């Protein structure tokens, strides 16, 4: 199966990438030197950490546009592009699975653990997506999910459906089953509605926005979203990724009445 998994919208934690700040500094200075267009000299990098997990915390800005007619539209274009990419990647995973690409590969990849995990991920998403698309009642309503090493894709959702304008919260318990400390940052794609429409990822709030776990430690992370007033009834789903460990991915589903 194709590994077109989505990238998280939020950034890596700065200290999870060795020399990240130095690299950013080098990059901006490189851009100033090499890109021969107006405004490159004013390039600045935004802070490395996203404070709310809203998905655009690590984008540099060529600040020349600030006073221009382009205005705020330009300022949002990078995060808009990233959001579309995330969405297309999530769709790609689902489409690939429906196309049955894995069985037609023509060779046995069972010996490749990475590929096996990808296949499991895709199969799980596909199974859940089909439920979402058919807008059936959730077959399991637990709003609390423990995600840990080698867990299949988790399905996280609030305990009850919500109306437009109401706030939905989901609590997840995350445990670190690795033998090293990990630092985690959560992010999600837009939630796509089964009947069309979407709930923007920027409306999702993660508390805490990041957390550190010692080996064996467990902590809760809460996802809250206020459903837009104009949201049509139906199930809205997106992919959640907790950065810091590769295996923490989940399907977030909110049912709007």
């Amino acid at each position, binding site marked *: 199966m*194709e*590994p*077109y*998994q*989505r*990238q998280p919208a939020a950034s*890596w934690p700065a200290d999870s*990438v060795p020399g*990240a700040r130095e*690299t*950013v500094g*080098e*990059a901006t200075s*490189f*851009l100033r030197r*090499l*890109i*021969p*267009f*107006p*405004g*490159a000299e004013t*390039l600045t*990098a935004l802070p490395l950490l996203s404070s709310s997990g809203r998905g655009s915390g*690590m*984008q*540099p*800005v*060529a600040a*020349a*546009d600030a006073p*221009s*007619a*382009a205005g705020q*539209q*330009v*300022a949002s*274009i*990078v995060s*808009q*592009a*990233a959001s*579309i*990419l995330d969405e*297309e*990647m999530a769709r*790609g995973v689902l489409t*690939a699975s429906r196309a049955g*690409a894995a069985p037609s*590969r*023509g*060779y046995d*990849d069972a010996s*490749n653990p*990475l*590929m096996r995990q990808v296949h499991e991920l895709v199969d799980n998403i596909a199974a859940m997506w089909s439920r979402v698309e058919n807008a059936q009642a959730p077959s399991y309503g637990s709003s609390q999910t423990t995600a840990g090493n080698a867990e299949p894709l988790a399905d996280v959702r609030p305990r009850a459906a919500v109306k437009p304008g109401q706030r939905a919260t989901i609590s997840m318990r995350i445990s670190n089953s690795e033998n090293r400390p990990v630092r985690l940052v959560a992010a999600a794609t837009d939630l796509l509605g089964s009947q069309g429409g979407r709930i923007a990822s920027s409306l999702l709030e993660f508390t805490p926005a990041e957390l550190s776990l010692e080996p064996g430690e467990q902590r809760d992370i809460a996802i809250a979203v206020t459903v837009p007033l104009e949201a049509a009834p139906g199930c809205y789903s997106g992919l959640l990724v907790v950065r810091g460990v*590769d295996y923490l991915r989940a399907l977030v589903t909110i049912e709007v009445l």
Partner: protein
Amino acid sequence: MAADTFEANLSGYRETTLEGLLSAVPQREPLRHLYGPLSSYLSRSGKGIRPALCLATCRAFGGDASEARASATAIEMLHNAFLVHDDIEDESDLRRGLPTMHAEHGIPIAVNAGDMLTALSVRMLRDNLPSLGLPLTWRVYDEFDHMMQESLEGQAMELGWVRDNRCDVTDEDYLRMVLKKTCWYSFIHPCRIGALIATRDQIDLDRFNRFGCYLGTAFQIQDDLLNLTGDERVYGKEIGGDLLEGKRTLMLIHLLRQLDAPEAVRVSTYLGQPRAERAGRDTRWILDLMRSRRSLEYARTVARQLAGAALFEFTRAFRGVPESDEKRFLQQVISFMVSRDV
């Protein structure tokens, strides 16, 4: 790395690719109406950025570039197939400074030639088998398959907007179309395939997606700007051709948001006409509007911002990769693509 070194490296990758392209074309009948025009067309040689990305990424990740050669060449072959058909769809007369395939040989011959280029590109992937083995060859095919699907879907979006004379296309629609039409096949997959081969499928290839998405979109906007404001002799295509074709570029989408009702009607009427009936006077009027309403400025600013984001994502896509000439080349691709005039 100096600009001339960059150009020299790009030229080296281009020559390697051209050799592979030409050697893949059968030298047998029908020569006059198929293989002859194909060899001639491939010899024109564009910038060659796609195979360069694939080969350089393979080397940067410690791979043997010769193992990525078939895949890099297949990507360029497919690119040429797309160009032949694109020019028919867009009714373009010039490509790389010379008549388009259909302008020179007629539409039926050109359609068939484009089909053959696609067939040859897929056939080239088979050449991976001896060096890469079946599993990796199949993985490369998976990437190629996705690349083709996305590009054709993106192309359909754009053609559909023109056919339906859509004047309500948004920036978001445009970004999605460009991601599908341009970014995957021109930037994301060439890097993914290069790294896939170098690492024997041992890294998460998604690390290249944002880099390629930002760079590809910046590239496309720059391409659209050049189409309106460039030098035809340097650019190699008709200046203003996108307007004549009714393409929904970022500048046009921006302009449509700025117009009052009578202006919007006039622009919409222009876009709804067949290409041959669009008056040059109206084309110039729209171009002037794009200047006065700052649509060109808006697009330039967006391209710059995306280039900055691409540069930032470069450091993430190539994290942990030792410094090398190839890595430096890849980094400089960003400034080249956005500051180019060809």
